[in-house]
């Protein structure tokens, strides 16, 4: 029977290698992920945890090195696998970010998981899977790949949130995240389908070519933008779609919360920038209006709700909502200044936010997380180094110079004003004043004299995480130029030089 189709089925080795090198970091990490699963199966029970942790760290380090190598020596980004993935600087930036986050998470969770008696190997495997999903999201150039990366990262995180089987709060967090996350993914998918209907392709650069400014009259595209925007806002935990964030952050085990707060946010922002700024540049007025509304609401709701919180995890969850609002200003501003500011902020946000969560994680006991304000009491006496570092993280999140939080906000706000969104920047500034109140309030029990003398033990790896985050939070602020330059190079593929 003669074939119905005549298709060119050649796929030479050189093509294969070229494609693979574009997604080298993802492929490396996937290889280590599969290896970790095998290690977990083969080794005896008491050696599993440590071995899988080592594999995970090695995998992240290799992925980091691969991405860095391609950044420095690579030929630049080209589209791979028929336009579904790429290894351009934007993708490499995020791959480096996620690999670093992975290393930090493994280092932090190693002692926590043992303390609480959880299964260590599955934990690290799930984290690896989530990072793979994030990297896929960062390097995706097609709506299909974006969705798959999103789902991979989300499913791994749903399971990780419910990791503590014996704690009902954890199970509740997982169920809530699953339902809301599935709902959000459905919105995203619906929007993508409509955009596909209007553009005829799922490859994002092609969509940018096919949809010009006149498409703003096509209801398909508008509806698609709105639906995708809503779904993205859910994922990035921006108000008014942030309802799941406090409960999920509170219920999930602390290293997972720390990982989620930075990773999902960064991955979701990569997604937003890729799809909106990269794929729909001529429709900017439409999605900028939507994102401006979301940003304003996030800043107001996040900061105001954080004031009333008594749980540190919930406080940091709402603070994350507000921070998402600030970063959205940079996305709206667009251009090289706006997008480089977004990339800078996401990179340094990793250190200051993860650091804050790391301190709280180290307070946890075998029975559960301790995240009341009263658990911080007398930290200045119990562990002075941790007290100083916590102060650094809180002041950085509040935006005091010379920390990275200040410079990140400076870059974002400058881009915002340059793009004509002064009202949004004024609102952000007013809300920043409000935020200082609750960030500084966290430090009150830390430095107030108290009778507590119980030590806060910290393993070597956790101390390393704390020190690295603390030093980075100050050093990258005193000299922000390098990371900002990396952000510019990363933003180039999307915004143009």
């Amino acid at each position, binding site marked *: 029977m003669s074939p119905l189709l005549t298709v060119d089925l050649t796929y030479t080795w050189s093509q294969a290698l070229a494609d693979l090198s574009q997604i080298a970091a993802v492929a490396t990490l996937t290889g280590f992920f599969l290896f970790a699963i095998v290690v977990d199966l083969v080794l005896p029970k008491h050696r599993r945890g440590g071995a899988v942790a080592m594999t995970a760290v090695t995998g992240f380090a290799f992925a980091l090195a691969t991405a860095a190598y391609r950044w420095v020596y690579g030929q630049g980004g080209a589209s791979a696998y028929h336009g579904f993935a790429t290894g351009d600087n934007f993708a490499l930036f995020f791959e480096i970010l996620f690999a670093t986050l992975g290393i930090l998470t493994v280092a932090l969770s190693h002692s926590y998981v043992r303390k609480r008696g959880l299964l260590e190997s599955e934990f690290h495997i799930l984290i690896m899977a989530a990072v793979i999903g994030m990297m896929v999201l960062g390097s995706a150039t097609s709506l299909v790949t974006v969705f798959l990366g999103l789902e991979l990262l989300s499913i791994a995180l749903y399971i990780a949130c419910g990791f503590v089987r014996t704690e009902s709060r954890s199970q509740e967090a997982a169920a809530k995240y699953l339902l809301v996350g599935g709902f959000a993914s459905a919105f995203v998918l619906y929007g993508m389908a409509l955009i596909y209907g209007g553009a005829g392709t799922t490859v994002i650069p092609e969509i940018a070519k096919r949809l010009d400014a006149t498409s703003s009259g096509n209801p398909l595209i508008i509806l698609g933008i709105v639906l995708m925007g809503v779904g993205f806002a859910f994922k990035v935990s921006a108000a008014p779609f942030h309802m799941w964030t406090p409960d999920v952050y509170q219920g999930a085990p602390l290293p997972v919360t720390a990982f989620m707060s930075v990773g999902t946010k960064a991955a979701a922002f990569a997604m937003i920038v890729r799809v909106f700024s990269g794929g729909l540049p001529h429709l900017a007025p439409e999605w900028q209006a939507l994102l401006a509304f979301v940003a304003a609401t996030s800043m107001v709701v996040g900061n105001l709700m954080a004031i009333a919180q008594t749980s540190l995890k919930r406080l940091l969850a709402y603070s994350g909502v507000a921070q998402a609002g600030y970063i959205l200003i940079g996305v709206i501003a667009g251009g090289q200044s706006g997008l480089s500011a977004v990339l800078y902020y996401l990179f340094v946000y990793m250190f200051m936010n993860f650091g804050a969560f790391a301190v709280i994680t180290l307070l946890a006991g075998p029975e559960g997380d301790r995240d009341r304000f009263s658990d911080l009491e007398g930290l200045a006496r119990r562990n002075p180094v941790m007290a100083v570092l916590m102060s650094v993280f809180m002041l950085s999140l509040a935006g005091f*110079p010379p920390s990275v939080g*200040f410079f990140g906000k400076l870059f974002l*706000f400058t881009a915002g*004003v340059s793009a004509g969104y002064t009202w949004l920047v004024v609102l952000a*500034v007013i809300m920043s004043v409000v935020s*200082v109140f609750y960030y*500084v309030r966290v430090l009150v029990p830390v*430095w107030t004299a108290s009778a507590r003398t119980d030590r806060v033990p910290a393993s070597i790896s956790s101390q390393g995480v704390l020190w690295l985050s603390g030093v980075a939070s100050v050093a990258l602020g005193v000299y922000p*130029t390098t990371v900002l330059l990396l952000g510019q190079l990363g933003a180039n593929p999307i915004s143009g030089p």
Partner: protein
Amino acid sequence: MTLTVIWLLPLVGSGLIAFIPPRFAKWLGVVVALAALAVAAGVAFSFEPGYRGYQYSEAVPWIPQLRVFYRLGVDGISLWLVVLNAFLTVVAILATPIATRHLNRFVALMLAMSAGLAGVFMATDLVLFYVFWEAMLIPAYFLLWIFGEGDRPARAALKFVLYTLAGSLLMLVGVIGEYVFTGKQTFDLATLATLAPSPSIQFGLFSVFALAFAIKTPLFPFHSWLPDAYAAAPTPMLITFAGVMGKAGAYGFLRIAVPLFPEPVGWWDWRWVVPVLAVAAIIWGALMAIAQRDMKLLVAYSSVSHMGFIVLGIFSYNVQGQQGAILQMVNHGIIISALFLIVAWISDRAGTRDRSAMAGLAARMPVMAGVFIVVTLAALGLPGLNSFAGEFMTLLGAWQRAPALALFGAIGLVLAPVYMLRLFQGVMQGPPAGPVPRSDIYIGQLLLLAPLVILMFVIGLDPNALTSLMTSLGQAGLAR
């Protein structure tokens, strides 16, 4: 390099002192502060009067993407403030009692605050200025909260920080606005002084800058954080807090608000609104001081009144007024430090801060009374002591702008003796009543006050020594 040393040395010293045993903290702190003072004095001695532009300037690219430079420089306006800051830091650390808990942390925080203030005065790039402006709030907050007196220092500290931050974060919008709306995309103060956007944009930008500076100075009606903060602050901290930090706000007016916005006209003309507020501050501060029984609060409100003179001088837009304002900044720093020290020592010995509860202490503390009357007369503006020249020049400048301003401002001159002399007479003279002080002034405390009192006489008799160097201005836009 020289100017960098002036702020970097106290900061490095601060970092080291925080970790050494408290026994050595005070003396090491004094050594570091003296070293910084030596460098600052050296700069002042080799300063060239009449030079156009910043002297000792350093410029290093910092964030090329936004054209932000690490730029330092001194000119006639900032030179004396840098010296004042270094000098008062030495006095403040010397005045710290050895018995203070966590002395090493206290001295470290004081040095850090001093470093931040030095940076504010020396920065000639808007972003660098802003970085130092905000960064100095961190040690101030911790000092107020952890080492504060009174029953609720935490609340006073938080109020201070939030109030100040509200102004300074809005100022951030102004900083960015200057970069965006002046068309040249630069943060360099000297360049920005030559570019001026449209009056309506100037109005908006002036508003946000003026708000931040008005809160810091403090200028009526944004002064409500001051009584709580000053009441809670420990006396050594008050010396730098009241002596130097308030000047940062006035300096901001002079360095940024006046030159960069020559025509801030919108819903109203700021060039008239601010002097009126300054006069209101003079009168209001004096009236509130008259009503105070707490000696510390009395001095605090008198500070509000005196800062009003300074702002009035700045906004007279002429040479006498502005030079008088700078002179008065130095004078006020010296006088207010001496006043707060004496008030603290008296209330230490008497056991209370309420001036109506004690009388006739001069009988038991004759030397203290003697020093007190000298400082009181200096605060009043007696000719021959430093405050006279400054107040005279500011009122002269104000008269040249609008006689009504000077007339109403002079009311402050009349009210000052009311509260100052009433304080002195009420506490020191008359038949002894109330608590009996343990002892007279200690030799160490007298020696600490000596340089301050000597300076009061020196500057009073030869103010030209200071004003002669004020003719060198680093940027356009100021009256010459």
